[in-house]
């Protein structure tokens, strides 16, 4: 199963084993990871599952839809070129080893 590494703002990291077909957000909340809130439960409404994607991975992720793009303008922490909503990233085998940084805050 693909594994994802989350890097917290303090530099500590968590490696999460994922199940196929779920979103990065679902994998994170299922593991009780601090730093992903996901208030809307994955409906692309709240922008509280914000992550910064490691630059080397950015181009390998599925493209961003317009609604995700608009929501990212409303994130609590600053939006960067590497910003994504983790509920919109479905885990596939080729994402094994994905590295994501967590923002300072989600609300």
């Amino acid at each position: 199963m693909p594994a994802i590494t989350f890097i917290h703002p303090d530099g500590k990291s968590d490696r999460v084993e994922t199940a196929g077909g779920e979103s990065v957000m679902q994998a994170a909340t299922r593991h009780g990871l601090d730093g992903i809130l996901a208030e809307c439960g994955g409906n692309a409404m709240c922008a509280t599952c914000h992550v910064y994607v490691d630059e080397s991975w950015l181009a390998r992720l599925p493209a961003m839809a317009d609604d995700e793009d608009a929501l990212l303008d409303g994130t609590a922490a600053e939006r960067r070129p590497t910003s994504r909503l983790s509920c919109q990233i479905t885990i596939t085998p080729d994402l094994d080893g994905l590295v994501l940084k967590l923002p300072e805050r989600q609300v």
Partner: protein
Amino acid sequence: MTASGAAGSGVPHLDVDPFDMSFFADPYPAHELLREAGPVVYLDKWNVYGVARYAEVHAVLNDPATFCSSRGVGLSDFKKEAPWRPPSLILEADPPAHTRTRAVLSKVLSPTVMKQVRDRFAEAAEARVDALLQMRSFDAIADLAEAYPLSIFPDALGLKPEGREHLIPYASVVFNAFGPPNQLRQQAIERSAPHQAYVAEQCQRENLAPGGFGACIHAQVDEGAITATEAPLLVRSLLSAGLDTTVNGIGAAVYCLARFPDQWQRLRDDLTLARGAFEEAVRFESPVQTFFRTTTREVELSGARIGEGEKVLMFLAAANRDPRRWDAPDRYDITRRTSGHVGFGSGIHMCVGQLVARLEGEVMLTALARRIGRIEITGEPKRRFNNTLRGLDSLPVTITPA
């Protein structure tokens, strides 16, 4: 209330009436009965299917092609019966029509817009606490749960000062009307004319102040996103669902925090828990208890076969306390991971105003917890009865300053 297996279908038939006063007074034993009877049940009283477990409620919410909204999200089937008011363009609509109107309201109530109104909402919450500290003893429903949203939401919408007393009664009609033709629904609709007239008038472009949510909806006409005849009906959605829901949400949170002093203390020790305390109250009390869907085809749901054109009642409140999904579901725990609860629904119809509700809840609970040491319930809370909404009519409390 009894459960009995009906021969043939495999779906247990129950004689529970989920719109009866005795059910509203204490729904929890009946919720358990509904959950434990089976994944899908049939309610003989109103000839509808019901789902009360988390998995099935979530599944129905997330399959809008099979479980549609355009035939009404109450008991009344719009295919067989004329709706009591022109249908909502968002709540009572399916894709693709729904997709377009939904996008407009999502934009008007987006996270970006919430950032812009946050300071204003927080200041109003502080002002409300100033007033409560003067009173010391008050009704936490009228003077807090209603007074706070009334002090910000109508202004945020851009409504005129006159006539706002119609807002809560109008919402009460809307949510009663989702229920069956019982006394609550019939009486609400009979008395609705003045409230309907007020709302229809306020939805017009010229009656909405520039910069407000209402004006922003009308501005989408100029962008070509919606037509001039659609805009007033979309404003109506905010008038219908934007106030009474947050009143009951904030009321639920205050009622929880007053009943569970250990949770109140945790909040006072860490104000960053305010948003979670509100969210957990929405799970725990589920201010919106139920919604219906209508099947567009014959479907099998967790082994039960449901024909086309059947009403399915989703018990959101029961799903939010389903032990299959939640640890210690009957405990109010402000640090719980609540993501996935269905208090705001789920899927394409998930509450479009959820960010407004959370913002109001967060800033109000933050202001309360920073400045108030104790909340003590000083009299018997009185329940307010509605076919869809769960909340209190009055909650007498006395507060002690921090």
